[in-house]
């Protein structure tokens, strides 16, 4: 490590000496720390400044530097090619100051957490909610993600109460999320503030984002901001990758699960020249062990025989991401990333000449760039642009049905931010263009018995130019309002207006009230959004051209932070309402052998949720989180009468959640133990009833509730080396008989099997207890210069 940094330093020295050595002028300045003092007795705060002697000041990427004198003053030669001044002092946050030609510069340093050779580290909360942000946004840090196996994004929400993750079917091992009682497709997923998994990639895309690549996840409930598009209804989840600021020089993660699943993840950061830094990430997943432990629910000794179907598919996945950061002259910044992914999954029946198998192959390539320019003068004024291009190909064969889908996407977004009149009103305005080309071919309309079914095709090309304006008003310490409007012109569906508003009012310093309201719009791609339906005998009936889904969402949230028995606690209460004007209704109830998709029309569909969450630091070593969530999600569908209810399937009305975390005292070598236990109670929910010949229960019966317990212990041996060991589903709850009609496969009556087989009726865990072990190895520290 030291040798590497020497090498880099020498390289930088060589490069910079050869480029330009003409000292033109001198920059003077002062480094100080603002200190707030309570005005004794008067009650008012006054700010004073402590000069910081001994702080180091140098040009980023250059060889010259200076140290502040006893009064905090410094003097440094200005170089033509260098525009970023890095000021650092042990015990303070390092800052990078953009130099725009001043002759004198004041550099305030905040007392900070980044400590060189530090022997003590601040304890940071791993799940946090800001009282000031008008968006009800929860941040999950990397530490929080380390509390569970969290191999990829679809599994990252196990320790979170707001987002549910469940399997789509019993064959492919695919998980999808739910937020505010609605499927993940109504939540806009962003990756580094750019559009993330969407379109044909909306469900599977989450497994292309490995947990160890993630720096933090921002979950905001309710419609998002207009700057990132019109697609969010129930929420916005932004995943921040580890980048040039947050990645350590080298990080390696290895993972092995009891099911034979192996994973390899790596993140490394490299300085390439003075202006370029790059982060390389790789991910590999391999699981070829045959697991068949679930099956009929009739054994008394708790052991179950297999059902002849793989519990988890055989998989071979690989994802590579390479991001480049460019820091240019006078405020030019660029982040350019390339992503390539391939996924191969084989599932279905085991043995020779299996009757039914499922195979999936996904190939994806993506390139994106963010190029920005910070305007000279006052802070907060900038130009920015975002560019994304991707090609996604999804090929699958489920039984006798094929699917081959391809999506080509291009998106450009140029935005300008600054102030409107006074400093109290910030604005962000921009224009965007979205191109989406979908081509889906396959035999989804075939009945299970057809040996050479005729082919179906769906084609759609969307061109959507648009413009948006978002203003943020913060004229008052107590309140803040973000109001946005975007207007898009869709080549197929006309003009779309998307108004959205977020507001925050602080009742007290520790309690804030947030409101959100706005509309959402999205075009459905049901074949890929309802992946689970492929794992069944159901024939797809796409009724008429599907119109875009439109709806509004409104919500209210109260968050309060307080002391409970002398220790920090927070409490949040929220309620959200999502109402659809149109929805692509996916109806499993109308017929047990069909999945019907049709427009909602003038019928009703809505979801109402309420959630209460309490977090408390019980003890120096113990933290606790307790949450309860209620969902009422209904859709007036054709099959509602037959099912005896309008309730959406697979949405439990009640869910309670509790997490306990322990962290031992950190010893002199930086070693400690941590432990986490998560308990989840998932209330009764309904699944679409299969054929009456196979299932004698009345239509409106709900499935049993269940409890899932996950536990993990990890040991940090020294900073940078840790090992973790965990068990998922400790109580070994498994949904009984997840694959309907499995027993018919062994009879000679092949057609009865093919006409009744259904692996999509999955509401609970299908894997039993699973142990896993993993390790992390980190070299060096992150370079969090830019904040």
């Amino acid at each position, binding site marked *: 490590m030291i040798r590497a940094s020497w090498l880099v330093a020498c390289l930088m020295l060589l490069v910079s000496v050869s480029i330009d050595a003409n000292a033109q002028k001198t920059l003077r300045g002062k480094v*100080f720390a603002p*200190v*707030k*003092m*309570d005005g004794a007795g008067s009650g008012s705060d006054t700010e*004073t*400044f*402590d*000069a910081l*002697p001994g702080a180091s000041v140098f040009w980023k990427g250059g060889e010259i530097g200076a140290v502040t004198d*006893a*009064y*905090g003053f410094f003097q440094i030669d200005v170089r033509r090619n260098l525009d970023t001044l890095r000021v650092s*002092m*042990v*015990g*303070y946050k390092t800052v990078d100051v953009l130099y725009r030609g001043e002759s004198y510069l004041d550099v305030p340093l905040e*007392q*900070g*957490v980044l*400590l060189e*050779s*530090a*022997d*003590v*580290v*601040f304890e940071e909360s791993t799940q946090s909610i800001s009282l000031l942000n008008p968006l009800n946004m929860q941040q999950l840090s990397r530490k929080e993600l380390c509390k569970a196996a969290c191999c990829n994004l679809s599994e990252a929400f196990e320790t979170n109460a707001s987002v549910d993750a469940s399997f789509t079917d019993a064959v492919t091992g695919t998980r999808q999320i739910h937020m505010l009682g609605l499927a993940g497709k109504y939540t806009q997923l962003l990756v580094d503030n750019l559009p993330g998994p969407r379109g044909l990639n909306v469900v599977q895309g989450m497994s292309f984002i490995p947990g160890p690549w993630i720096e933090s996840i921002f979950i905001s409930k309710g419609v998002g901001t207009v700057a990132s598009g019109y697609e969010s209804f129930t929420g916005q989840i932004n995943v921040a990758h580890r980048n040039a600021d947050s990645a350590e020089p080298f990080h390696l993660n290895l993972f092995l699960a009891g099911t034979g699943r192996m994973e390899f993840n790596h993140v490394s950061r490299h300085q390439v020249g003075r202006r370029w830094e790059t982060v390389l990430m790789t991910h590999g997943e391999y699981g070829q062990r045959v697991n068949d432990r679930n099956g009929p629910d009739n054994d008394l000794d708790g052991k179950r025989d297999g059902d002849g179907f793989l519990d988890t598919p055989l998989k071979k996945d690989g994802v590579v991401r390479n991001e480049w950061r460019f820091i240019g002259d006078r405020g030019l910044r660029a982040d350019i990333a390339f992503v390539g992914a391939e996924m191969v999954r084989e599932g279905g029946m085991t043995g020779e000449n299996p009757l039914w198998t499922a195979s999936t192959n996904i190939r994806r390539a993506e390139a994106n760039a963010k190029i920005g320019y910070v305007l000279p003068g006052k802070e907060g004024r900038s130009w920015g642009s975002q560019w994304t291009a991707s090609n996604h190909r999804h090929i699958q064969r489920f039984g006798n049905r094929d699917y081959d889908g391809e999506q080509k996407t291009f998106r450009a977004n140029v935005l300008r931010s600054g102030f409107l009149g006074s400093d109290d009103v910030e604005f962000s305005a921009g224009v965007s263009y979205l191109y989406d080309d979908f081509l889906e071919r396959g035999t989804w309309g075939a009945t299970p018995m057809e040996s050479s079914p005729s082919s179906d095709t769906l084609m759609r090309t969307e061109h959507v130019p648009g413009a948006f304006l978002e203003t943020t008003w913060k004229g008052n310490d107590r309140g803040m309002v973000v109001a946005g409007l975007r207007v898009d012109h869709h080549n197929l569906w006309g003009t779309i207006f998307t108004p959205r508003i977020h507001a925050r009012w602080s009742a007290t310093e520790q309690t804030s009230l947030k409101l959100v309201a706005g509309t959402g719009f999205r075009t459905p791609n049901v074949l890929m959004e309802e992946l689970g339906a492929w794992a069944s005998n159901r024939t797809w009936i796409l009724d008429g051209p599907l119109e875009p889904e439109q709806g509004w969402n409104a919500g209210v949230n109260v968050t309060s932070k307080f002391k409970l*028995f*002398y*220790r920090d606690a927070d409490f949040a209460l929220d309620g959200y309402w999502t109402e659809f004007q149109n929805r692509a209704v996916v109806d499993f109830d109308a017929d047990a052998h069909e999945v019907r998709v049709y427009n909602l029309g003038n019928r009703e569909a809505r979801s109402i949720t309420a959630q209460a969450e309490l977090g*408390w630091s*019980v*003890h*120096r070593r113990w933290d*606790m989180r*307790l949450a*309860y969530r209620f969902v009422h999600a*209904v859709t007036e569908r054709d099959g*509602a*009468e037959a099912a*005896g*209810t*309008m*309730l959406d399937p697979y949405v439990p009305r*009640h869910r*309670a959640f*509790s997490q306990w975390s322990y962290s031992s*005292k*950190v010893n002199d070598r930086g070693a400690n133990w941590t432990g986490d236990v998560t*308990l989840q*109670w998932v*209330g*009764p929910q309904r699944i679409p009833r299969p054929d009456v010949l196979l299932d004698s229960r*009345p239509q*409106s*019966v*709900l499935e*049993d*509730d269940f*409890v899932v317990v996950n536990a993990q212990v990890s040991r940090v041996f020294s900073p940078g080396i840790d090992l973790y060991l965990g068990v998922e589903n400790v109580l070994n709850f498994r949904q009984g008989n997840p694959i309907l009609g499995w027993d018919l496969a062994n009879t000679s009556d092949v057609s009865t099997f093919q006409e009744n087989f259904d692996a999509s009726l999955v509401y609970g865990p299908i894997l039993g207890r699973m142990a896993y072990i993993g390790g992390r190895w980190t070299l060096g520290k992150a370079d969090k210069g830019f904040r």
Partner: protein
Amino acid sequence: MGFLSISPIGRSIFRGVAFCIFFILGIAMTSVSSQAQKAELTFGVSGLCGMCESRIEAAFDQKGIVVADYNLETKQIHVVYKTKKWNKVGLHKLATGVGHDTDEYRASEESYANLHGCCKYREHKSCIESHPEDQ
């Protein structure tokens, strides 16, 4: 909307309620166990930076100390402790033990010498205080 009503789900509601009671009990027990005689004390401790704050708070990470919160701006520590295990002198000594002077006791030269360079508050303080008009 008559078909919105669902068949009785008493058993599962029972389980849900049991789940909640389990946790409320847990919280109640924690609070009962912390009913022992407690006292609060606030006193001055010298410190300069975030590193000092962490060090001081780590020193107060002891059995019988419920909360120890050091405020760098006011240079005061607020401690909630069990009177059975701790007294005022003991608490002051926790700070001096890791090299930080309190408003009543002075840390030994050895423990002060162990402080990180940037945390040498005795030198830094005099340096800043001698030129207050510069700030």
